[in-house]
């Protein structure tokens, strides 16, 4: 079985966001990049399937500049077999559709039974690339999964988390799955894994070698990031003082009279 995991380098979730000079993107110079947290669940699930099914190979794919390479090293250190870096400048400027087209092209170079992604890239939070890949590769999908069971005859059962319920999805491989928190407990890379990952080769592709440069510029023209702006802080916070009885009375009054939400 062949598994691909799409991983994304995202700014560390603790990062203070600073806008660049023309306010169309974030300043990335001082930013530490990490593997998008949901992608860690995707990697872990791929490794679990590999451990349970001999002869399985896991390939991690990431699009981006140098930070994508660091994330691929992290995937290799956790135990994936191969890594493919799609080298692009300014990946933050790409819409999910553009990203999906580039990833789909690279995925179509091989035939994968399972494609795993995080349910969203933390940061831009689009939550779209998995479904876009399923459409472009013309395979089925199960998104927001918290459990995956592979069955005989290339079929699967996946449990997806929806509002207030879980849905059991039955389907046929090949398929795209997007990982939701709760799917598994991601392992940390071992020291041995980190050492071994340094020596592993990362295959590099780019838009020219994938023959998608023209398509990318066409797709990019459909949507433009006009501006990023920092939301305004709440105008003023009222501190409600007194003993608990007084505090509660004052709070309820404010919620009724001032905020009018009760």
């Amino acid at each position: 079985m062949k598994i691909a995991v799409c991983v994304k380098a995202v700014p560390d979730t603790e990062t203070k966001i600073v806008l660049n000079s023309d306010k169309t993107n974030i300043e990335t110079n001082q930013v530490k990049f990490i593997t998008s947290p949901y992608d860690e669940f995707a990697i872990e699930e791929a490794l679990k399937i590999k451990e349970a099914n001999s002869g399985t190979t896991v390939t991690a794919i990431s699009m981006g500049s140098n930070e994508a390479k660091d994330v691929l090293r992290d995937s290799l250190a956790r135990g994936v077999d191969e890594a493919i870096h799609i080298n692009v400048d300014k990946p933050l400027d790409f819409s999910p559709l553009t990203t999906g087209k580039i990833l789909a092209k690279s995925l179509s170079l091989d035939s994968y039974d399972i494609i795993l992604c995080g349910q969203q890239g933390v940061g831009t939070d689009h939550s779209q690339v998995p479904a876009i890949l399923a459409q472009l590769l013309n395979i089925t999908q199960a998104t927001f999964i918290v459990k995956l069971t592979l069955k005989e005859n290339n079929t699967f059962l996946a449990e997806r988390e929806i509002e207030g319920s879980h849905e059991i999805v039955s389907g046929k491989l090949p398929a795209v799955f997007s990982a939701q928190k709760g799917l598994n407990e991601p392992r940390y890379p071992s020291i041995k894994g980190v050492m071994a990952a340094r020596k592993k080769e990362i295959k590099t592709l780019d838009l020219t070698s994938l023959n998608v440069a023209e398509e990318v510029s066409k797709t990019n023209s459909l949507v433009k990031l006009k501006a990023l702006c920092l939301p305004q802080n709440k105008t003023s916070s009222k501190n409600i003082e007194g003993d608990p009885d007084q505090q509660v009375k004052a709070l309820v009054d404010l919620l009724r009279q001032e905020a009018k939400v009760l």
Partner: protein
Amino acid sequence: MNILVLIEVRNNQIRKASLEALSYAIKQNANVTALLIGHNLNELTTHLAKFKINKIYLADTIVNYATDTFAMALSEVIKLSSANLVLAANTSLSKDLIPYVATAFNAVAVTDVVELNILSNSLEVTKPVYSAKANAIYELTGSLNFLTLRPNVFSQELTGQIYQNTIENLNIKYNEPRSQVIETITTGNTQMELSEAPIIVSGGRGLKAAENFAMLQDLCDVLGAALGASRAVVDAGWISHQFQVGQTGKTVSPQLYIACGISGAIQHLAGMSSSKVIVAINKDPDAPIFKHATYSVVGDVFEIVPRLTKEIKALRDNN
């Protein structure tokens, strides 16, 4: 402008957030088409009589969700209505379906939209990014675009009139779907969906133990609120992930968010800072949550919350 609104049906009910999208479409003086996908849909159309819709399509007799089947129905109606804009509520269903269908039309989709301006040749769309630390404003120039709107942000407005909308049943021969839902398991709280709840009461580590969530549930019950939680208590196993508000949980925008014993880690703030009114109750006066609160109550949740429940119950009993 031809706007198609996907009206989502869950448990034989139309979702409130879908009606918010429908209201928005109607206000634009656009040609509005609505699509319902599911089963026993005819009886639901009476709920749409309060909205002036040019045409309602029903894709009936579909009992369970399947991406392929829903995609076929939606694609068909996009073509029938010559849609320029497809609107849906930002839910787990639309996040599965909308990017999948948009891609088939080589069209752009934007999820979790909080502001939308329809301009003469483009759409200006705002969505929170970087854990709501910033808003991104996108300009969409394609001839067809797809947007999912964040629940509770766009208001539902009614004229008070009743309309005789035209209803048509779709006649589609569906292919066997490659994957489909075969069972739905209710996982606890069905009373109020977090992302659509007008009021949320959320608990964090300050609650000290799993069983103390019962105290918050009491407050939820008198308020008609949904229960939420911080990541810390979900990771501690006190409550399941579906209650988690924040970066690796749900993003919510209720009218009123009451944070009880939550310190306000940046990842939590990401999920709730767009709430209209935020009440923070915490013992620690330096807790970061207070910087984002409309009303700050420095105090012990075990002293404040039961009194609050009692006070609101008395209020409700008097009305």
